């Protein structure tokens, strides 16, 4: 396990980082390039800079090789699972996953039943959240297979920190991560059924708009909103300023399933494209990621991912889950009630760090209420052992302070699975918190994968 302490001298660590951080150069650059995310506060849209900390997470070459293998294996198995669920459903028939975990969740979309997406790929872009425990073991906390976001931040942060602090990189053998756009382009081209590639955005008031526009620029794909695209004669077209219709063969859509097509999903969606789902079903356009993936990244289904690896690939899972309990099973319910204080509980329907609560942080009244809820709706929650994951230092007001940090790794399914040699490291700015989500005030770091 390499930390920055191993590759930076003490002087570099304190004095240089301080100089770089203190010079304000990095923040100035981030502001200049508008590295922001949007949030709604009191119903008002605000753009906020995403706090960036210069000290990187560092991952050794060997360690990353292990992660890379495990991540590929996991995402390949997840793709098999989604194909199976919207196909013959062997995994349910063979009793590996109870039926109600599939159909009761909001992730399963009956409309997708029987669909084979282009090249059989459902999860083109997967964001796998990992943490590293104090003993060095890695655990997967969550799979994000719908619209995982965040890759643009380390991409641009790398560009900026190489400019502002070149000395930090000299002789350190860090894998270049600015190839993400090229990887993404390959992934999109692989499934494109003919025509342009567009990135579909809900618009500039979306939290991740910076990312949408930045990825469009860097991949050379065309950024579009729903009303610029139209389905005609079973194909998708972009209407340009002269009224000419340009065929579109792949849509990297950054809007969620329910808003994608008002004819199939939410009728009140004004950001989607009417009838796009029909032509997707016919194989006339690729949707990246495919609709219906929610069935596989549901917090309840997470429990079964290691079983999927064994079932579909007949391999031992390389990456482990955090020890997880499903109150749905009697013995797990018993365990959860008896060990409530040392567990973290998650509402399977929530995301973004909401609905994640730690047993030991609750008052006794809250605990009792929660336990009642748990007994009434056992399928709604999962419980996990709290992983005491590693801190990484951050620089704050001339001081190095340890903070909890997780890692979102990106796996792209092109002709073959590819793992981006970097990732988004998010940290909590609150010393007592494990919650790293940006919507909860967290910041981010670059992730360095060493090449030797």
């Amino acid at each position, binding site marked *: 396990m390499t930390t920055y302490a191993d590759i930076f001298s003490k002087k570099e660590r304190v004095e240089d980082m301080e100089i770089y951080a203190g010079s304000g150069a990095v923040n100035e650059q981030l*502001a*200049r*390039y*508008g590295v922001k995310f949007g949030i709604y506060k009191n119903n008002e849209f605000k753009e906020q800079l995403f706090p960036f900390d210069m000290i990187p997470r560092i991952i050794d070459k060997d360690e990353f090789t292990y992660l890379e293998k495990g991540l590929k294996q996991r995402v390949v198995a997840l793709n098999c699972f989604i194909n199976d669920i919207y196909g013959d459903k062997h995994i349910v028939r063979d009793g590996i996953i109870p039926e109600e975990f599939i159909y009761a969740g909001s992730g399963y979309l009956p409309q997708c039943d029987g669909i084979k997406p282009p090249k059989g790929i459902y999860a083109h872009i997967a964001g796998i959240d990992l943490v590293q425990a104090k003993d060095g073991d890695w655990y997967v906390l969550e799979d994000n297979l719908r619209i995982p976001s965040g890759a643009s931040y380390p991409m641009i942060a790398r560009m900026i920190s190489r400019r502002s602090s070149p000395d930090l990189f000299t002789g350190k053998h860090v894998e270049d991560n600015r190839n993400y756009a090229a990887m993404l382009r390959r992934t999109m081209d692989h499934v494109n059924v003919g025509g*342009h590639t567009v990135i579909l955005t809900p*618009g*500039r008031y979306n939290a991740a*708009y910076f990312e949408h*526009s*930045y990825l*469009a*620029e860097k991949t*050379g794909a*065309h*950024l*579009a909103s729903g009303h*610029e695209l139209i389905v005609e004669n079973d194909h998708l077209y*972009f*209407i*340009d*300023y*002269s009224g000419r219709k*340009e065929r579109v063969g792949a849509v990297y859509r950054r809007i969620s399933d329910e808003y994608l097509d008002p004819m199939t999903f939410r009728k009140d969606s004004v950001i989607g494209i009417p009838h796009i789902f029909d032509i997707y079903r016919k194989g006339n356009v690729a949707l990246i990621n495919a609709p219906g993936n929610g069935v596989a990244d549901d917090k309840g289904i997470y429990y079964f991912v290691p079983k999927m690896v064994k079932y579909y690939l007949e391999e031992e899972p390389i990456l482990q889950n955090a020890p997880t309990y499903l109150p749905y099973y009697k013995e797990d319910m018993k365990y959860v009630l008896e060990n409530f204080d040392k567990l973290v509980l998650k509402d399977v329907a929530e995301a973004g760090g909401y609905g994640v609560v730690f047993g030991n942080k609750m008052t006794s009244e809250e605990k009792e209420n929660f336990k009642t809820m748990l007994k009434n709706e056992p399928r709604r929650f999962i419980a996990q052992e709290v992983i005491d994951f590693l801190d990484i230092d951050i620089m704050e007001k001339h001081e190095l302070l340890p903070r909890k940090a997780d890692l979102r790794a990106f796996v792209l399914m092109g002709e073959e699975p590819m793992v981006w040699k970097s990732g988004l490291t998010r940290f909590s700015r609150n010393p007592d918190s494990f919650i790293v989500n940006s919507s909860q005030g967290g910041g981010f770091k670059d992730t360095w994968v060493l090449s030797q």
Partner: protein
Amino acid sequence: MGIISVENTDRLYWLGRYTERVYTTIKVFESRFDSMIDIDDLEYEKFCESQDIPNIYKSKEDFVARYCFSLEDENSIISNLMRAYDNAIVLREEIGSESLSYIQLAVYAMNQASLGRSPLIGLQHVTDNIAAFWGMTDDDIEESSIRNMIRVGKLVERIDLYSRLKVFPERIRKETRRLTNRIDKSTMRYDHKRMAHVNYLVQLDDLPYETLTDEIEKLVGDEL
């Protein structure tokens, strides 16, 4: 090369117009501000009149604070800059992150300028960044029709402002010649008859400024 929607051609045009509006109104403000220092406290009243904006200001201090820096004043320089920003932020792919960053920097400079006590120094950073933005769009944008749409917006706005300010006919003629050369290269739709009329108007000995303003405003846009 890429494809571009009607909406975005429109935005490019307005990006050109608003950047020009900010740039030129700052320049005009600079000259008026100078005489407000110790010559004529009420200079701003004439300014409002020439710009055809309501004089809602209580004093020269109030004028400087609100006309330059108040987002609540829809005619303020900062409001126009934010309109430029709103157009630019959704054009990253057309104009590129580098060009876009100068609009972002102009916004920071504007906010910074509002904090200081010498607005002209602060505003200079704003015009510097706009000038850099224009230079960058010329240098960096490969697609000439995109460059030209911004240019056309900029020239239309300039002629509009100059005729409101009743500047010397020769200056307006020069900008009109530039616009005439440029507009066909932009692939934008515009009213050809009006363009001819504008060319006729600017040649008149007694330049009819008001008619010119009306005509130039209707040259490009929805009314076609």
